[in-house]
C-alpha cells in the first residue's frame, strides 16, 4: 500500500513529497465496528491511560467471542497521543479517517478534550474512560461527548456523605493541593458537600504539589483542639503518600479520606501495614470478590488474558466504557453519532464501576454515578460500600 510505503520513508522531506492523500474511512454499516482510541501510550499520561486500555481490549475480546454487536465484530484502533494535546487531537482525527465510529478518549480533561473535540467535529460519540473533571461533558465539548467517570462533585459528595451520614463524623479538616485542577476542585466540592450536610470544616490548608513534605500542615492539624473527626486530603500520587506519612507521624490519628488517584497498588505498598490503616478512599470501583460476582468474573478473565490480577480500579473503566458502547449501539441499532448519543442519555447502565445514568445534553451529560468507598486496613484495600450521593454541588 502506498500509505505504508510512505511510512517507511524515514526522511521527513521525502515523506512530504511522496505523500498520497489519505484514504477515506470504510463504509459505516459493514465490516467490524471500529473503536478509535487516541490515547497516551507514552509520556506521563500513559500511567493513566494504560490500565483502562487493558480493560477495554479484554471487553472487546469477550464481546466478539459472544457474537459482537449488531452481528458485527468490534475492533480497537489505537494511536499514541504522546501526552501532548495537539498530538492527541491529530491521533483522534487519524483514527476517524481510518473509519473509527466511536472514540475512547484519554483519562483526563486536558488530554482527553482534544480527542473529544475531534469526535464531536466528525459527528461521532466519544467517551472518556476516566476523566473526572466536571468540564468533561456536553456543555464544553458538545452533545456527543461523555465521560464514564463520575465527576469530582460526585466523588467528593460521596466522601462527605459517607463521612457525615454513615460514620457520623461532624467536623473535618482539609489539605488541598493547589497545583492541579483535580486537587483544587476535589477539595472545594468536599467542603461544599460536607457543609451542605451540616458538617463543620474546621480547617482548610493547602499543599504545594511536589513538596513531598507537609510537616507544617500536619502540625497545624495536630494543634486543633478538639481534633477533627476526619481529615480530607486532595492531591495526587505520589504526593499522597508523603501527606499520609507526615500526618501520621505528627500524631494525627483521625481517619483520612481521599479521592480516586490514591487507589493504586503502589500506594498501598508504599504506606504498608504501618500507615495503611484508617484511610478511606472515594473511588470508581473495587477490584475484589466483595464487589459482586461480575467483578469476580472480571478478575478471573483479566487474569486469564494478561497473567496478572487487575492492579487498579482504572482497569475496570476501559472495560466498562466498551460495555457501554456495546449496549448503546445495540439499543440505537447504529453507530450514528446523534442516535447513539440519544440511546446513551437516560439509560441506566449497570457496570463494574457502579450504576450510571447520563443526563441529557442540555444538562451537560452529568454522569449520575455510584462511587465506591474503600477502606485501607493493614495496607490492603477493603470494600466498604457503594454510594450514590443524594446531593452534589453544582458545576461552577
Amino acid at each position, binding site marked *: 500500500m502506498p500509505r505504508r510505503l510512505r511510512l517507511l520513508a524515514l526522511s521527513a522531506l521525502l515523506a512530504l513529497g511522496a505523500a498520497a492523500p489519505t484514504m477515506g474511512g470504510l463504509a459505516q454499516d459493514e465490516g467490524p465496528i471500529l473503536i478509535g482510541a487516541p490515547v497516551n501510550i507514552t509520556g*506521563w499520561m500513559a500511567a493513566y491511560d494504560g490500565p483502562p486500555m487493558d480493560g477495554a481490549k479484554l471487553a472487546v475480546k469477550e464481546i466478539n467471542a459472544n457474537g459482537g454487536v449488531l452481528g458485527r465484530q468490534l475492533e480497537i484502533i489505537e494511536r499514541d497521543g504522546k501526552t501532548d494535546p495537539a498530538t492527541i487531537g491529530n491521533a483522534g482525527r487519524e483514527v476517524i479517517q481510518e473509519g473509527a465510529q466511536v472514540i475512547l478518549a484519554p483519562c483526563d480533561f486536558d488530554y482527553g478534550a482534544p480527542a473529544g473535540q475531534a469526535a464531536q467535529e466528525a459527528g461521532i460519540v466519544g467517551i472518556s474512560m476516566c476523566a473526572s473533571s466536571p468540564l468533561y461533558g456536553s456543555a464544553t465539548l458538545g452533545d456527543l461527548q461523555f465521560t464514564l467517570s463520575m465527576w469530582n462533585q460526585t466523588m467528593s459528595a460521596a466522601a462527605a456523605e459517607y463521612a457525615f451520614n454513615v460514620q457520623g463524623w461532624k467536623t473535618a479538616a482539609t489539605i488541598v493541593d493547589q497545583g492541579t485542577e483535580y486537587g483544587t476542585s476535589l477539595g472545594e466540592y468536599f467542603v461544599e458537600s460536607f457543609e451542605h450536610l451540616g458538617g463543620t470544616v474546621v480547617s*482548610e490548608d493547602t499543599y504545594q504539589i511536589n513538596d513531598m*513534605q507537609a*510537616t507544617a500542615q500536619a502540625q497545624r492539624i495536630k494543634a486543633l483542639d478538639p481534633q477533627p473527626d476526619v481529615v480530607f486530603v486532595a492531591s495526587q500520587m*505520589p504526593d499522597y*503518600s*508523603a501527606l499520609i*506519612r507526615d500526618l501520621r507521624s505528627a500524631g494525627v490519628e483521625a481517619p483520612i479520606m481521599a479521592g480516586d488517584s490514591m487507589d493504586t497498588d503502589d500506594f498501598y505498598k508504599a504506606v504498608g501495614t*504501618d500507615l495503611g490503616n484508617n484511610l478511606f478512599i472515594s473511588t470508581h470501583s473495587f477490584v475484589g470478590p466483595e464487589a459482586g460476582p461480575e467483578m469476580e468474573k472480571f478478575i478471573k478473565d483479566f487474569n486469564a488474558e494478561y497473567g496478572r490480577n487487575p492492579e487498579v480500579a482504572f482497569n475496570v473503566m476501559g472495560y466498562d466504557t466498551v460495555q457501554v458502547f456495546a449496549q448503546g449501539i445495540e439499543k440505537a441499532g447504529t453507530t450514528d453519532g446523534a442516535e447513539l448519543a440519544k440511546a446513551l442519555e437516560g439509560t441506566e447502565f449497570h457496570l463494574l464501576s457502579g450504576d450510571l445514568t447520563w443526563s441529557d445534553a442540555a444538562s451537560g451529560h452529568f454522569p449520575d454515578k455510584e462511587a465506591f468507598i474503600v477502606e485501607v486496613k493493614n495496607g490492603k484495600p477493603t470494600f466498604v460500600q457503594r454510594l450514590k450521593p443524594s446531593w452534589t454541588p453544582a458545576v461552577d
Partner: protein
Amino acid sequence: MNPISELIQYLVSSLSLGGLYALMALGLVIVYGILRLVNFAYGELVMVAGYGLLLFGESPLPFIIVAILSVIAAIIAGVAMERVAFRPVRNSNAMTMLITSFAVSTLLQSIALLAISPRPRAPNLPSIFVESLTLGSLQVKIVDLIGIVAGVLALVSLTVFLRRTVIGLALRAAADDFTMTRLLGVPANRVISAAFAISGMMAGIVAIFWIGRTGQTYPTVGLQPVLIAFIASVLGGMESLKGAVLGGYVLGFLTIGLQTWLPQGVNNYRDAVMFGIVILVLLIQPQGLIRPSYSREVR
C-alpha cells in the same frame, strides 16, 4: 503544644529538610565549580538511585546493602554521563553544555518511562521510614533524625575527602581555577570524573531520603530535587561548596518556616517568590551568600 517543643519540632524538621537540600545543592555545585555546567541531568541520577532501590530491594539483601548498591548505581551513572555526553562538549561554551545536560535529562527520563513504567513504583523500604518517636509532647520521624545525622556525616566526610586526599585537593584546586590546575599537571579527566562521581553519590544519598518521603519512585522523581538544588546553590553561591551547604540549610529553614507562619494564600506563590529571589541574587549578588575564597575575573 508548648512553645519550646514547637520550636524543637521546627528545628528538627528544618534541619532534616535543610540537610537534604544541602546534599542536593552540593551534588550540583561540585560539578558547576569545575565545569561551569549546571547539570540538569543531576535529577536523573536521583532517579537512577531510586530505581536502584526498586530493583535491588526485590532481593533478600538487607536494606543497608540495597541502599549502598543504589548509591553506587548513581555514581556509575554520573561518571558514565560525563564520559559519554559531557566530555565531548567540554570545550564548548556554557550554553552548549547546558543544552546537552537538558538533552541527557530528557533522554534518561524517556528511557525510564518506556523501559520501566510511567507510574510511581514502590520499592521495598524498611519500616524505619514510616515510624516516629514520641518524646513527651513531641513526635519526631525517625527518618528525620537519621537524615540529620546522615546529612552531617556526608558533609563531614566530603570535607575530609577534599582536604586530606590528593584527588580531593586537586578537586578543590580545579574548582578555584581549572585552567591553572591543568597547567600544573593535574589530569583533567580524572578530576572531572571524580566530581561526577561525588555528584552521583550525593544524588544517591538524596534519593534514599527523598524517595523515603513518599515511598515511591517514578521517571520525574529527580525534577524537584534539581529545582531545589538550583535555588539553594544560587542563594549560597554557585562557586562555593560552603555556600551550597549554607544555601541548602537556609532554604530548608525558609521552606518550613514559610509553611508554618505565612498565610496560606500567600504560600501558594512560594515557588514564584523563591525563583524571583534567585533572579535577584543573580543580579545583585552573583556570588551568593558566600563569596568564593579566590578572586577571579568576573565574566
